[in-house]
């Protein structure tokens, strides 16, 4: 085995080991009316996710994939930002892992009449006294939240406790928009329903399978390229 293949295998094993704790999974389906954001002077708006570690050490014991975005006639924008264990985009899916205490993703979007997406999450309960928490908010042009009735201006929150608990909050017109100093936008309370899934974790499993296949293909391609370049050098080993 070459050094490269050995390294890839170690990574794969590490990942499998790390993912072995993902015993259960669930899905949160979120949808909300964003029609009030269309043409609103507080734009551009941003979709923002936070996935903050409960135990505070960044234990990385839970992962979240947010995908299947439907902007109801709008679409994702160019500007995005990731912090900590956040990656991806609303075009291809947003991955969040609590590898840090504060993990954040936000991306500009053009609001349509509605916004919906799926949140697939693992359900490992933190050892600490508080759970990992995923939250969703919409930011205005000041990149601060549109005020909601939630204490932290989230529209949806998800605590990965046992069982997971989700809350939804409406926009709060009594609040003040950071962008315009105008009144908050009365976004109706989002619909957020947790859909339990079997004990397997399809997306994680899919990811693992894809990674495994990718690693194998990559390794084989690399081996093939290597063998083509070093045919003479490799030949003696076949003997």
């Amino acid at each position, binding site marked *: 085995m070459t050094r490269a293949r050995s390294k890839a295998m170690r990574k794969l094993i590490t990942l499998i080991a790390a993912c072995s704790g993902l015993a259960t999974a669930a899905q949160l389906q979120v949808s909300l009316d964003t029609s009030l954001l269309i043409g609103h002077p507080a734009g551009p708006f941003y979709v923002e996710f936070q996935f903050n570690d409960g135990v505070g050490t960044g234990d990385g014991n839970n992962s979240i994939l947010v995908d299947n975005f439907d902007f109801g006639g709008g679409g994702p924008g160019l*500007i995005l930002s990731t912090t900590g264990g956040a990656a991806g985009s609303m075009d291809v899916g947003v991955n969040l892992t609590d590898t840090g*205490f504060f993990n954040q993703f936000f991306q500009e979007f053009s609001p349509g009449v509605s916004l919906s997406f799926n949140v697939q999450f693992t359900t490992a309960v933190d050892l*600490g006294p*508080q*759970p990992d928490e995923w939250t969703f908010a919409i930011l205005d042009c000041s990149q*601060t939240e549109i005020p909601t009735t939630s204490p*932290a201006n989230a529209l949806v929150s998800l605590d990965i406790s046992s069982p997971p608990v989700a809350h939804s909050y409406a926009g709060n*017109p009594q609040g003040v928009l950071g*962008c315009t100093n105008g009144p908050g936008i009365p976004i109706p309370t989002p619909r957020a329903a947790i859909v339990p899934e079997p004990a397997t974790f399809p997306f994680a499993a899919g990811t693992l399978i894809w990674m495994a296949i990718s690693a194998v293909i990559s390794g084989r391609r690399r081996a093939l390229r290597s063998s083509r370049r070093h045919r003479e050098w490799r030949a003696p080993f076949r003997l």
Partner: protein
Amino acid sequence: VYAFQRSFAFGIRKAARTLTVVLGLCSAAFPLLAQLPTIHDYADAAACQMGGREANYLPSGILPGGARIPITWNQMEIFWVPANNPPDGTGEFKVMTPTGLQSMAADVPEKGAGGPFMDPTQSGLGNPTGTNLRCDHFSYVDPSCTPDQFVREVFQGSCAAGANQGAICSADTQCPGSTCGGLVRWHILFRRTAASAKAIDNNPATPKPADWGPIYTPYYDIVDAIGLKIGDTTNQAGSYATVWLDGVGAGSCGGGVNAGMNCALPADCPGSMCVANSAARDFANGFRAGPMPRPGGKRPAMRAEGMRATTWFDLPATMKNGNCSGCHGTPFNGSDWIAQTSIEFQDDEAKPWWHAGNEKVGFTEKAFFSAATQGGVDFRCNGCHRQWMVGAGSTPGGETFGDGFSFARYMTMVHDAHMKLPINDSKGQPDIDNPFGALAAGSGGANAYRSLASLWRTDRPDPDPAKDKPFLDKNAQQTHWMPKDHNFTSVRAWLGSCVAGANAGNSCSSDADCPGSTCRGVRNAYNWVACCGAATLAGTPPAIMVGPGQPVNTGDGPAFACGAVTCKNPIAQSQVKALFLTPWMRANGMNPVAPAMAQPNGTQFIDAPDSPTGVSLTLVDCPAALPPANPGDRCFRLAWSDPSGSPFNAPQTFHYSQLPRMAVNAADWTDAQKQSTQYCGDGLPSQLTVGATNVFPSVTETQIPVASGDKWRFSYESIGSIKKCEKMAIRLCGGWCLQAIKLAGEPDPAAPNRMSTEIGQLLTLANDTQGDVSNSLSILRSGFRKNLTTGRYVQTITLTNMTQAAIPSPLSLVLMNLSGNATLFNASGATGNPASPYLSVAAGGDTLQLGAGASVTVTLEFTNPSNQGITYTTQILALSVSADCK
């Protein structure tokens, strides 16, 4: 993985390229700024966000005796310099220019000078004659340029480099080897109102204006200051303005036979001096400070936007796309809709201040209901109508309340209350249910409403008391309403257009503009709207808006009559009453009605619809100003916040109701006692007044720091004494006290007069030991979210009483071993050794206890600049009567 990485990297590069293209386009568009109107065109677009909603605040006045006029922008100050030889109460204004204090007396163009003056030595900008300074640079300055005003113009900047780098300058010549940059052009305008020019004290013996001189204290009763940031000294593009008006106190005799009498000259005060009052002028016949914007508003140093207002100016492009332009930069401001120019304004001076931002700002299309006509900004009604005058008696709000009640009807009811004495409905019948009847029928009569309605608006003299007044007028009688779900897409639709004839489709203001036809438009029928605004409650826009068969323009003034209007969908009075239903009233079937009594001076508690939040009552060590009378005595700390802001929180007064103190081992207060404090009791409640100290009932006020979006958020604190082994109960009320109300079924006239629309929160505190009840409660923590608006991490905690017995409230949630990277922002105090922060938790409402199985949820806010994990353990304390107190 490699493929993904390559794909991802490609995507990033692609995005970067796209972003570059976009930025390039933006850069190409930016030079358009140079084509913006010159400085005068938007000089008056007053800085709406810079304290413009400081409705009732008047600075402490321009103090005589050498006190500074509090204009301190960019080190520019104005001084009142008294005459000391001999000290006779006179003096003069001086301006602190870059070269020191300069007298203005020689520049005053008293009578015949032909217009506002400018300092000829400071005119600059290639226009030494000063003709650049137009007399209408304030929309509220008399365009005739009468000589009762004086303008001082000063330029001030700093040298960008060279030998004098950083030095104050007004021209490039003062900056060898460099330029004078960051210029701010200051216009300090000293004015006299017409009334003061006639006779400040209505005393025929008082010298007339021609006899006045600028050295006399009451000479100028208005001081306006405007600062314009000059981006380009050639065409002044990029400039913007902020405006501050202030008033000079009227003079009064300091002694002698006329002690306390108004005066204008020393001769008016035999044996004494004519001294300027330290209080701000009443402005009864001129402008009032509110709602004129004051840069930075109240306590500008305490708020981010306040600081910004004093140091920074928005560019016009910025203004048009946000903040101020929502109200002041839209075509509304140039339209009759807002300015109501067709009513009674005779001249420019009579126009309200927001007329400043007119169509000259760049809204040539005058299409204000169409989205995306101004760079994608959708000018909707709610931008202005939900903010402007919120809390005033006749807010032209385009919104509805939670019950679907249109604010328009609210306005109409106010209008009716004032227009009809006794109160009639639109058919001329007695309208006994009008909740605003008290405003007109009370001891204050019509003036009660006038007082309320004019609380937030520009005062103007009443040129013809027989006529109705513009609704923006001091003596407003007229209210107007933007119909909900209207179909108008242009100013023209509002103004009216000719139905047919040669001018068919052309805008018009009267039938005379439409030969052979008639002029129809919303404006011509708005009285119908004023009478029947509630028609839209049924969801049907009034058909009469532009159609035939509707009342012709009833006009304003005497012609206005709701009796000539047919309301299609009249509203039930119960819907009006619903305005005043609090959740508690609704839950208990209480139907408030308005007794006929005087409105209590517009007193409000905590600005509607806010309520005090985070109210806590905690035991603290007494401050030096309040030493314990006996060993064991301690102090209580009453604290709360008003997080939603109180832009109209005019009187800095809050209200409370306190129950008699009792020994901790005595029986609890009765339910009747507790209930008696609801709405802070009957009649006029006790007051907590914001002052210099926090010794109860004085309250200190502190801004709540937030990262952005801050408005008028303050926290409050008051500390009082509590004896050893004593317990207390106090209620802080929230909600807006529109008027006294009673509850259905309560007797009249002995009915209690509820002074708040919010019950308020009853809190109790005992000066005794607290025991650990942690084992009696379960604690459920949420995760953390960083509130990007405040920058703080937020967590909720739910405490549940797991026992079969009630636990006395308040509880103290102690956070022990809190990780060093975090601080509990909303801590009520600290306890233990080492000190641990705790949060006082009021549970159980008026029961003052957390019942068996009951829960209470509290919010914790942590500052955590490092964004690292937050850890702590908890302990819960509750009252435990000690042996000393048993």
